[in-house]
């Protein structure tokens, strides 16, 4: 009670979160029209869809039941083969959001990444993304491969992969991370569904999740300022001298944490490897410097 009189900021801090949560809940109840979603897995490891399954508050069940109509995704959908691809083609006629994970393999016209076979013809990831992106209302590139090329485009890049924004000449919202945090995916989609495009930075990433560097909010920052550095992994000080990429990587990992807010790499004695940054993994090497 006394705090409130002394400092209005303190009081508002406690309420801001509740306000946002209430807004999200009320918006999610207001609209009962679900938008279609196509989630294409191109040249990548499908790690982002697996990461999405780990979502909570809201979890994946709520996401699929109340927020979107996930018509096509080869990991989660029930249909197979040509019948699955027919659903994809049918969705193209409607209003939908396109999510791409994985880079676009361009070698030999995309033949290094075949995602379907339809009418005895191989459909490449490149072709499917092009088809869907021409008609989609929004395009999201989820994960570092889709957003920047990532591991798929790492040296020597045998499949000649490129990122989705490089491949398409339309606006693509980047949601990088290797894998991407489920909350960042659902949060960005929720903002699109209930309001409109979220505020984006100059690299087209949502500012709300990619606004500050890891170094800015890192729990070991005070060690950094005092010049106390860990000499080997497992020590509790700042891991700057071991090659931490926190200062050049923008995500909310320190505050949001992973696996249902359980822990995160630096909290578990691993230096940040800059997985959500342009240039990962080649320019972020070495991951640990001794």
């Amino acid at each position, binding site marked *: 009670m006394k705090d409130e009189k002394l400092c209005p900021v303190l009081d508002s801090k406690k309420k801001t979160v509740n306000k946002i949560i209430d807004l999200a809940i009320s918006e999610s109840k207001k609209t009962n029209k679900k938008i279609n979603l196509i989630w294409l897995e191109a040249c990548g490891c499908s790690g982002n869809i697996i990461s999405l399954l780990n979502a909570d508050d809201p979890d994946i069940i709520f996401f699929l039941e109340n927020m979107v109509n996930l018509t096509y995704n080869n990991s989660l959908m029930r249909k197979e083969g040509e019948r699955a691809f027919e659903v994809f083609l049918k969705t193209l006629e409607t209003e939908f959001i396109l999510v791409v994970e994985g880079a676009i393999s361009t070698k030999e016209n995309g033949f290094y990444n075949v995602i379907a076979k339809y009418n005895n013809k191989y459909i490449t990831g490149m072709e499917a993304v092009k088809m869907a992106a021409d008609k989609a209302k929004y395009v999201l590139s989820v994960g570092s491969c889709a957003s920047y090329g990532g591991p798929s485009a790492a040296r020597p890049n045998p499949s000649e992969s490129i990122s989705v924004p490089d491949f398409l000449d339309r606006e693509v919202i980047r949601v990088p991370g290797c894998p991407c945090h489920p909350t960042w995916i659902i949060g960005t989609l929720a903002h699109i569904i209930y309001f409109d495009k979220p505020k984006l930075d100059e690299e087209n990433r949502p500012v709300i999740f990619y606004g500050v560097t890891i*170094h800015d909010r890192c729990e070991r920052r005070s060690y950094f300022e005092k010049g106390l*550095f860990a000499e080997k992994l497992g020590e509790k000080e700042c891991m700057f*001298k071991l*090659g*931490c*990429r*926190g200062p050049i990587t923008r995500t909310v990992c320190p505050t949001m944490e992973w696996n249902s807010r359980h822990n995160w790499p630096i909290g578990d004695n691993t*230096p940040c490897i800059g997985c959500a940054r342009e240039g990962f993994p080649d320019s972020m*090497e070495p991951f640990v*410097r001794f």
Partner: protein
Amino acid sequence: MNLKFNEFSRLNYYRYMEMISVYPWEKNYYRNLYYKEYKKLYFKRFKNNNLKEFTLEELSYYDGSNGRDSYVAVDGIVYDLSLEATWGGGTHFGLYAGKDLTSQFKGCHQDMRSILDKLPKVGVIKE
């Protein structure tokens, strides 16, 4: 060390404020300011005089590995990047410290003096 009057007095002032502060967080605040100022002056010593001469071989020792300092030469001047946050572990976008990186610097940062001017200088390259 040749220091300007007001820099000394700032140090003294922070120390004094730390001493007379009653609350621990206030003490902490001034202590932090003191250390920050101290660090700045500490590096100024390198900036103004004591410029060491390095051969490229000597420079290669300071590559940032095993907690060593990381030094990089640009245009014949050796800069200390040990505490530069973007150079974690003496590496920076695939580059390693302990080398002459003039061409790389110009290739990536054009000729931005503002970046270099902020860095502490530790020496020059011996011809």
